[in-house]
């Protein structure tokens, strides 16, 4: 199993002044896995993702992502990962094709390769007719799918998705997850945060964070069994909100 580890986090701590955002994280993620990262707002998910994607340096401890240290080689990490953030991340005033070309170029892909991938991607999404439309003219669901395709355009080893399905209708969310499965089956590891609990059920393994720590990490089935719950949502409420309150954020 060891050679299949693509993310290895060891004693990872991140402090902002007196506040400990990430408190001694310790976990591994395997190749081709869909790893769900759950937690209430402010639990430390975003901080952890920022460290793993080379955006922010750990206070102590380290994370090895695709063989590179988040502490010492954040620039190397950036080359081999894909990233799609909460807010929609394509340029509204550029066309579909221009967006794809831009990101392909930023990740250092050759022009010929970008052209090939663009055609392939447009075909797969049934998007040919939109190739030269501005992003702003597309419905949100299409934008989201396109943003995901662009995030894995350069064939990264790992793709980080930070609440990728916020504000999308259930049908599109469903289709979006089919794309995630397809990506994982190609051997790309998917690291996804979400606060839709039904989506958590789709993950291979999930971790639940609370106040900077991981309080549970296992497959959805095991977690349900362990906490005697009928759904991940119930597990989440039992763990993250011991007082039974649902957060309304």
């Amino acid at each position: 199993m060891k050679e299949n580890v693509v993310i290895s986090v060891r004693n990872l701590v991140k402090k902002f002044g007196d506040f400990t955002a990430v408190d001694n994280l310790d976990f591994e993620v395997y190749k081709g896995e869909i790893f769900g990262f759950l937690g209430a707002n402010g639990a430390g998910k975003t901080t952890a993702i920022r460290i793993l994607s080379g955006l922010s340096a750990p206070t102590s401890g380290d994370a090895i992502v695709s063989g590179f240290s988040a502490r010492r080689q954040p620039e190397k990490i950036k080359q081999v990962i894909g990233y799609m953030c909460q807010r929609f991340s394509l340029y509204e005033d550029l066309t579909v094709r221009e967006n794809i070309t831009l990101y392909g170029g930023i990740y250092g892909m050759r022009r010929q390769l970008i052209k090939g991938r663009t055609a392939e991607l447009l075909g797969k999404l049934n998007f040919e007719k939109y190739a030269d439309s501005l992003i702003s003219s597309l419905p949100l669901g299409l934008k989201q799918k396109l943003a995901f395709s662009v995030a894995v355009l350069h064939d990264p080893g790992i793709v980080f998705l930070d609440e990728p399905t916020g504000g999308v209708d259930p049908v599109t969310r469903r289709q979006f997850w089919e794309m995630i499965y397809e990506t994982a089956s190609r051997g790309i590891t998917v690291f996804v945060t979400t606060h839709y609990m039904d989506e958590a059920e789709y993950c291979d393994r999930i971790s639940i964070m609370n106040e900077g720590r991981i309080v549970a990490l296992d497959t959805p089935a095991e977690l349900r069994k362990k906490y005697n719950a009928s759904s991940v949502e119930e597990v989440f409420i039992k763990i993250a909100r011991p007082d039974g309150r649902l957060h309304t954020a």
Partner: protein
Amino acid sequence: MHGPTAGYILHDMKRFLGFVKKEFLHISRDYRTLIILFGIPAAQILLFGYVVSTDIKNAGVAFLDQSKDEITRRLTDKICSSGFFTKTGDLASQADIDRIFKKGRTKAVVIFENNFGRNLISRGKGEISIIADGSEPNVATLVTNYMTAIISDFNRDMAGPSAATALIVRPEVRMFYNPGLKSHYMFVPGVITLIMILICALMTSVTITREKEFGTMEVLLVSPLKPVQIILGKVMPYFLLSFIDVIVILLLSWFVFDLPVKGSLALLLGESMLYILMSLSLGILISTVSSTMQQAIFISLVGMMLPTILLSGFIFPIENMAEIYGWISSILPPRYFIVIIKNIMIKGTGLLYVWKETLILTGFTVLFIALSVRNFKIRLQ
């Protein structure tokens, strides 16, 4: 550690150029950006040049000639042919004065006393009254000054070279560098100064905060692009376009207002680049402290434009300001650029006379960049 190879640098360069191209696409897609970049500067120049002109040109003047002799006729001709005044009428009596002023076109009335010519020759003294429309004090002052100058000139002609006996000490005022006291001389440098800081600071701060607001900045930061490449890539198009703006304004001022660059054009363009660079770094700094475009626009407009207009010496001379405003003015970069550009454009001086201001502008640039880098690092922690 290996140094970067040539191949890697080339690769990096291509990545960067693709990013710069994207910024040009943004600009070309957004007509508002284009208007701000090119429409406003041209409009400002023409507006300040024509509408806000403080020159007298074809001001209406009416005559109440109670003498109607050879000399009053000649003086009337001289006034009307000066180019500053246009005759709006001959009045028959004092009662007409009020009436013609109320029509609005006439700014001054010249009254020759009875027997003006005869008195002038026999007694060496003729009485002229100039009555100006005081409801526009600035115009009235200008009109009377111009009129007085024409009359004393006429006086001198009358006396001729033989009038050595009647030597009267007469103050003679001459305006160096701007003999006609043309207001363009003041406005063109002022507008360049104002427009450049406004466009550069405003546009860069807005374009960078836009990426923050839309979440695309996050994606760029996670990409292999280095932060410095992101900032340079966003700023470079504006550097180019602002520089084109400077050239357009200079051409306009030359061809439309007949105000050429007296000093070295290369020096002027070089100083303009420095000023643009300074303004861009200020824009970057503004973007590091604002999280929304609105905030960036507010800081740029209120923080830059008003002080620049009021305190940089653009319109109101710094020497006349209360001490505290003088102090505030000395921390405004535009103040120094105005000195530089006026020196080069109008007086034709070289770097020798503006090196101090150049140094100060360089200092501001370094300061703004250093502060931006510091803020950016804090954000990334």
